[in-house]
């Protein structure tokens, strides 16, 4: 069970002359799965990038265990919090085992040697992501779904209590999307890892998240249990879309059906 706390206070952040986040507060629930959803350019990736200190805030703070994360040593943060960015790069020809072992980076200084504990962490990460039999394969030969599992394995080998993921299911077909989300849920149940992820698919977010955060225009529009957040009003405010919300017959979670201008049986 994760004992680390992560919270965001009055966060203002952006790029160059564009401010994207306009004063945002968020409390990440320890040991739970949080999904951040919102329209394109609403600032959800910017929020994740600032929380994982890839981007410095203009104002406000990201607090890890009560301390400002942007003033902590990068290595210390990386021992507690892992991040899977949107487009990581696999060096040409690198094998799965080698790539996953790069996740041990924050646990090593300039002179420290590789230990049995490192091998155990890598093996456990490969087993958890069912990529052990791919260990000696080159990453560039793998399918999209396999590759994403390998990247998650690298983040797991980091052995952090907090794991942030920026759209981990993008570019994957639906079966691999479900596979990745199941894997993250396993991780959350077994190790109590706190998961925070940006997701594109509202219905998958509602199904897998304990806590749903809906963003619009660089601020928090709504947050809470999916049942409370995923309403027709929220969808209209956040996406500018009319919709019907029905209970998902397989999970009991709310499910959004978009209403367009055509192909509507009930006018």
């Amino acid at each position, binding site marked *: 069970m994760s004992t680390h706390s992560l919270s965001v206070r009055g966060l203002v952040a952006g790029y160059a002359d564009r401010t994207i986040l306009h004063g945002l507060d968020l409390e990440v629930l320890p040991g739970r799965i949080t999904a951040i959803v919102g329209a394109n350019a609403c600032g959800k990736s910017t929020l994740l990038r600032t929380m994982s200190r*890839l981007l410095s805030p203009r104002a406000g703070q990201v607090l890890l265990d009560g301390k400002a994360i942007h003033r902590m040593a990068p290595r210390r943060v990386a021992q507690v919090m892992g991040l899977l960015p949107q487009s990581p790069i696999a060096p*040409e020809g690198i094998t799965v*085992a080698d790539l996953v072992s790069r996740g041990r980076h924050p646990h090593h200084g300039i002179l420290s040697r590789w230990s049995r504990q490192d091998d155990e962490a890598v093996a456990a990460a*490969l087993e958890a992501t069912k990529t052990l039999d791919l260990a000696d394969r080159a990453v560039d030969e793998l399918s999209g779904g396999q590759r994403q599992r390998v990247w998650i394995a690298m983040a797991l080998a980091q052995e952090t209590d907090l794991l942030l993921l920026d759209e981990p299911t993008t570019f994957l077909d639906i079966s691999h999307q479900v596979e990745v989300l199941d894997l993250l849920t396993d991780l959350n149940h077994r190790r109590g890892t706190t998961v925070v992820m940006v997701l594109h698919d509202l219905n998958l977010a509602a199904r897998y998240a304990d806590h749903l955060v809906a963003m619009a225009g660089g601020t928090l529009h709504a947050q809470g249990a999916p049942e409370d957040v995923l309403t027709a009003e929220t969808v209209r405010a956040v996406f500018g879309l009319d919709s019907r919300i029905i209970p998902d017959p397989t999970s009991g979670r709310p499910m959004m059906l978009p209403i367009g201008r055509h192909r509507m049986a009930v006018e």
Partner: protein
Amino acid sequence: MSAVDAIATGRLRRARRRGAVIGGALALLAAAFALTLMLGQSFVPPGTVLRVLAGGDVPGASFTVGQLRLPRAVLSVLAGLSFGLGGAAFQIMLRNPLASPDIIGISRGASAAAVFAIVVMGLDGPMVSVLAVAAGLGVALLIHGLSHRGGVAGTRLILVGIGVSAMLDSVIAYTLSRAPSWDLDQAMRWLTGSVNGAQPAQALPLLVSLAVFGGLLVSRARDLESLRLGDDTAAALGTNVALTRVLVILAAVGLIAVATAITGPVAFVAFLSGPIAARILGPNGSVLVPAGLVGAALVLGGDYIGQFLLPARFPVGVVTGALGAPYLIWLIVRVNRAGGSL
């Protein structure tokens, strides 16, 4: 076999292959070094070479080996190490083989400053090296500044660098044309690079630069290697990306500039060493140190070929230039075929 054992075995296998490649490269380099001391216009037997190296006075051989061949071989190895390490550091950091200092104008900046210092300001010795390092850093800052637009994109930096490089070439050509007493041999040194007329004293600044800047690079090798996964992933793994970048640029520019101030820009050694080392090493860890060894072998071997194996005597830069140019063309053609994104 348990999963943990399998992982440990795989890791040991990679480490062993890496050790074998580095050991093999060192052995080859040592053999080539010994051969260049023995072979030349006249053959000097190994026993005599050893006696000269031990400080013994052998008529004839003391001059050919001690005064001519040894300083030349030492300078070749040290300059090659500097070019190989510095070039590979840039290529790893920017994840692009075209991002080598001799393509993006940093070597040209050091050359231009050295030529200016010698021809116009009448300087020599360490002051030339200091100015060359300063100019190399200046060019690095300039292309970084010109290509910075909400983050540094590798492609933009390379294109800006190629432009700056062309500009600096004309500065070198202009300065040389203003130096009436400048003889052709010295002018060639600043255009292609050469170890002709190597002096033992020239090894000292290279040794210092390798100890300081090379040491800094090797101590940062692990952080540098993490940048290959992308800047975001490296940061997520606890690498201080900005600091690593600054230190790597400083160290690589220092290595390249000091070597350039002494031998001139030995064409394409910085550019070729990393990719050749990567091809030999395979995916078995950082290419940095192997690239240094390949650089040393390229300069040592290239100089020997230029001196003795061609119909006329050529400076080493002509030989490495002839090797590097086709590779550059191939690389650009391949990149264009892949869709034009570098």
